[in-house]
Structure formats: C-alpha cells, structure tokens
C-alpha cells in the first residue's frame, strides 16, 4: 500500500484511539478513583457527627502506628477513635490520602486491624464480633473510612454526602 493510503489508515486508527481516550477520561471523572475536594476537617466533622463517639477515645499518632501500622505523616489527614475499654469494638478510622496509590496500603492496614479485632472477640465476645462483622470499609478516591459501631450505614451515608 502506498504511503498516501497508509496515512489515511493510520490517521483513522489514531483518532479512533483518541476518541476512546476521551471516553476513558470522561468516565474517570465519575469513577471510584475520583478524588474529593472536601477538606479533612469537614469530612471528619461529617462522619463523627453521624457516630456515637461516647464509647471511643481519640488516638494519638503513636497509637495509630501501633494499631494500624501506618505513619500519619504519610497522609494528608488521619484520625482514629478506638474503644475506651478492651471490651469495646467501636472504632472510627478516617484517612485522607495524598494520592490514590496509597489506597492499597490503607486497605491492607484496615484489613489487618479488622482481622486482629475479630480474632480478639471470636468465641467469647458475640456482640462485639457481630458488630465487627457489620463494620464497613469504604475506600473511595482520596478518602478511606473504617467504621465499626451500632449504625455504620449512617456514618457511611454521611461520608458519601460529604465526599
């Protein structure tokens, strides 16, 4: 085939690929990786406002590292409220990521924490275990939420509204 004809074929293929690229970009705007411009404080207020915080205490950075194995300095914002006593299973963990590549690290940290908690209560803390079973892990764009409590769905709704 002569170069003239080939140039038509390549041009068509090139702009076809460009068209699919455009579609990909448009869908990216509404995909699960879409980030939120909501400030960490606003998000924190929204989720703590939807949660019974009386059975929890706020963790400092050392405690966050101990319980979740992550360094709060690596993220734009981290807050953890954990049970007041060893017999509690209520927990609220909210992280604002610097970028979505940190999603896996946070997901692993939350999964590990959930396994530890379930192992702690398995066999004797029936209510606590059930609460952990109902807990919700939501990782969306630049935010991650882990909520274990009486009404995790209410906290998730608040999270989604604020996102």
């Amino acid at each position: 085939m002569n170069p003239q004809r080939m140039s038509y074929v390549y041009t068509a293929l090139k702009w076809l690929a460009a068209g699919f690229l455009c579609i990909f970009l448009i869908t990216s705007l509404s995909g699960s990786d879409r980030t939120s411009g909501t400030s960490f404080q606003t998000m924190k207020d929204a989720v703590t406002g939807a949660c019974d915080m009386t059975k929890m205490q706020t963790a400092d950075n050392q405690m966050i590292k101990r319980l979740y194995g992550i360094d709060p300095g690596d993220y734009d914002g981290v807050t953890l409220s954990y049970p007041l006593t060893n017999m509690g299973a209520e927990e609220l963990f909210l992280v604002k990521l610097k970028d979505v590549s940190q999603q896996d690290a946070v997901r692993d940290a939350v999964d590990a924490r959930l396994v530890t908690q379930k192992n702690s209560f398995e066999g004797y803390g029936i209510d606590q275990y059930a609460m952990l079973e109902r807990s919700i892990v939501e990782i969306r764009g630049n935010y991650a939420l882990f909520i274990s409590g009486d009404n995790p769905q209410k906290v998730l709704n608040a999270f989604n509204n604020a996102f």
Partner: protein
Amino acid sequence: MTFSSLLFLFLFMPVFLLLYHLVPGRVKMPVLLVLSFVFYAWGSPRNLILLVLSILFNYAAGLQIDAFIQMGRESMVRISTILTVAVDLAVLCFFKYVTGTLPIGISFYTFSVLSYIFDVYRENARAETSPLYMAVYVAFFPKVISGPIVRFCDFQEQLDNLRFSRSDLLVGLNMFLQGLFKKILIADTLGKAFGNVTSLSTMAGGTAWLGMIFYSLQLYFDFSGYSDMAIGLSRMMGFRFDKNFNYPYLSANISEFWRRWHISLGAWFRNYVYIPMGGNRCSSLMQARNLLTVWVLTGIWHGSTLNFLVWGLYHGFFVLLEKFVIKDRLEAVPVIVRILITDFLAFIGWVFFFSPSLGGAIHYLGQMVCMDGIGFWNQTTSFILKENLLLLIAAVLLCTPFVKNMHDHLAFRRGGVFRAVSVGIYVLLFFLCVAELVSATYTSFLYFKF
C-alpha cells in the same frame, strides 16, 4: 504489584523468568507483553485500559508521522507531531491537575511514548511497524511504573540485537538483590525514622534537621533501589540499560548532582527540551531561558502543587548561579567542602519535595531554625539520633562506592573464602528482607506517586 512484595519475589519473578527463558525466541516478546500487562494491571485493572489506549494512539501516530515523512509533507509531519504530543500531555495533565488521581506510572510511560514520537519525528528511529514491539517498549514491566525512562531509539536497538548469556542472569540478579537490600533494609528503615520525626507536633531544630537528613537518604535508597531492581530485572532478560543513579551525594555542585540523580529523566529533558530549544549553543540569556524552562518542567512533572514548582526553580537558580556567576571560582574550594555544600542545598530542596504544600515546606524550614520555640536540641533529638546512629552511618557509607568497591575487590579479585562470605552475606540479607516483608505492613516506593 511492586518488586519488593512477596508475591513478586516468590511467584511473579520466578514464573516469569522460567517462562521467558524456556519458550522459543519468537514467543519471548508475547510472553513479556502479557506478563507486563498482568504486572501493571495487578491491583488496578482499569488503568491497563488507559495504558493500552495510549499505546494504540501513539503506535498509529508514529506510523502516520512516518508516512507523512515518506511523502515529503513537512507541514503535515509537524502538525501531526504537535497534535500527538498535545493529546499525550493533555491526558497526563488531566490526571495530574484535574482529577488529582494518577494512574500508576503515567508520568513515566507518557515520557516513553513522547520519546517515541520525538524520535520518529526527528528520524532518530524508524516508526515501529509491530504493535507487539511498540507495546513491549511502553509496557515493559521493569520500567513501566517508575522508569528508568529509556529512549525509544535505544530500546529499539536493544530489541533488534537482543542477546542473552548466563552472566546476564547473574549480573542482573546481583543488581536486583542490591536494589532490594537498599529498599527494604535501608530506605524503609530510614522511612520509619523520618515518620517518627514528622509525627511530632512540635520539634527542636536539631530534630527537624535529622528528619530532613533521614528523608534525603531514604529518597535516594528508595528510588535508586527501585532503579537497580528495574535495571537488574531487565538485564536478566538480556536488556542492558544505563544506571539511573551514580552516587549523587558525592557531587561537587548542583549541575553535577543532576547528572548523577535520576539520570534518565535529566537525559530526557536534555534530549527533548533543552537541546531542541538551542541548548547552550546560543546567547547567555537564551541559555538561561532554556535552563529555567527545563527546571520549571522538571518541577511540575513531579507534582501539581506549588512546592514542586518552587523546588524546580530552586534547583534552576543554583544551576544558573553555577553556570553564569560562580563559574570556575568553585574550583578553588576543597572538593569535600563543595560536596558538603551541594548536599546541604540538595537536602534543603527535599524539604519542598516531601512537604504536602508550600506552606508546609516553609513551616518545616521554620522548625529547622527553632521556630517551634523549644530550642535546637532536646531529649527527643538525642533519643532519635541515638536510636538511628548506626543506620545513619551505614546509609552515609553506602552513599559512597566504598562498600561496593571493597566487596568487589574481595569477592571478585581475591576470591576464595571471600567469595563464599559474599554469597553468605547476600543470602543473609535476602532472608532479612523476607522477614521484614512478612512482618511489616506494605510500604510503597516514594516515586510511585509521580
């Protein structure tokens, strides 16, 4: 998937190497491509669609430009190149500055496809007619996520003359392991020390200085470790890429630092931005413009926030200062002093790099000059220094070729028992890495976010 994960070390890498070396020659590239896609898509399959679309778009664009060159239609060659580059950059900027969510490796593979388009446009390379080879160039799993950014013309040459010997496997494995040790045993440990510093709400000046030093060393071992692993893996397949780091903290000035740090990115900007703009074959004013352009682009390539732009300009300023103001006067200063000054300037620059914003960087610099009001040294500073002193000494030593030269001299020149000891040390360090990987939480590479 990352190189420093158990899944990669004990499943992906051995399976890949076995398959790659057992299959007949004509099947090697399809195997390499399929497993590169698997590697890239692991954890985020959606991003693979973008990578494939980018490959298709640039594959067709390269052939289109080549067809216009053959037809002698210069204006169409230029228009087609400009439009292609514009689309590639628009996609990168869309994710970098609009969504703020970067598909992993996009900064690196975009620079790879741009290298292809520029090489075809400048007729440094022929347009790739094989979509398989084009896809292998872009998606090549050792480099797709964090480089090194290999020029298309160099990669094409390697593909055309791919040879493999048993020594490639050994040399590559050696490089890979050295990179793994750098990442797991040095960088991640320094990262923990840096994390301990940044988790303090207030800190003495000395503590902030220690934090800056920890991060500067961590970044070097993290990224150069990744690069060593990438280059080592490539070597195990028969590809030979130049090193990406050459003891940068032994540089005697900032210009030299950038010839030794992330060498492939510097080379990319030199070949595709600085030289086409006129390089240093023009007036001093135009040279300054060219250099500043490169440094602004280097800054914003790393991130969308103002601190990265300031970081780029900061380095650009010192490069200009050395080139036009200080010139040869630095030669009179003892080399050790020049190295210390260069490291000091580079380390200060990393404060802009690790801070989440310009305000954060200024705040941290303020803490370094005791703005927290708790003096320069306190018990926390002593504790952190004492806890990490051995690590710091080891890291500083490993920033020089001293340990490597001594090892190579003993293991390869004297041989005998020294070689056996060397093998023993490698095995021990590997087990330490595995133990660390089993017990530790996932730690990503610092450059994955770019």
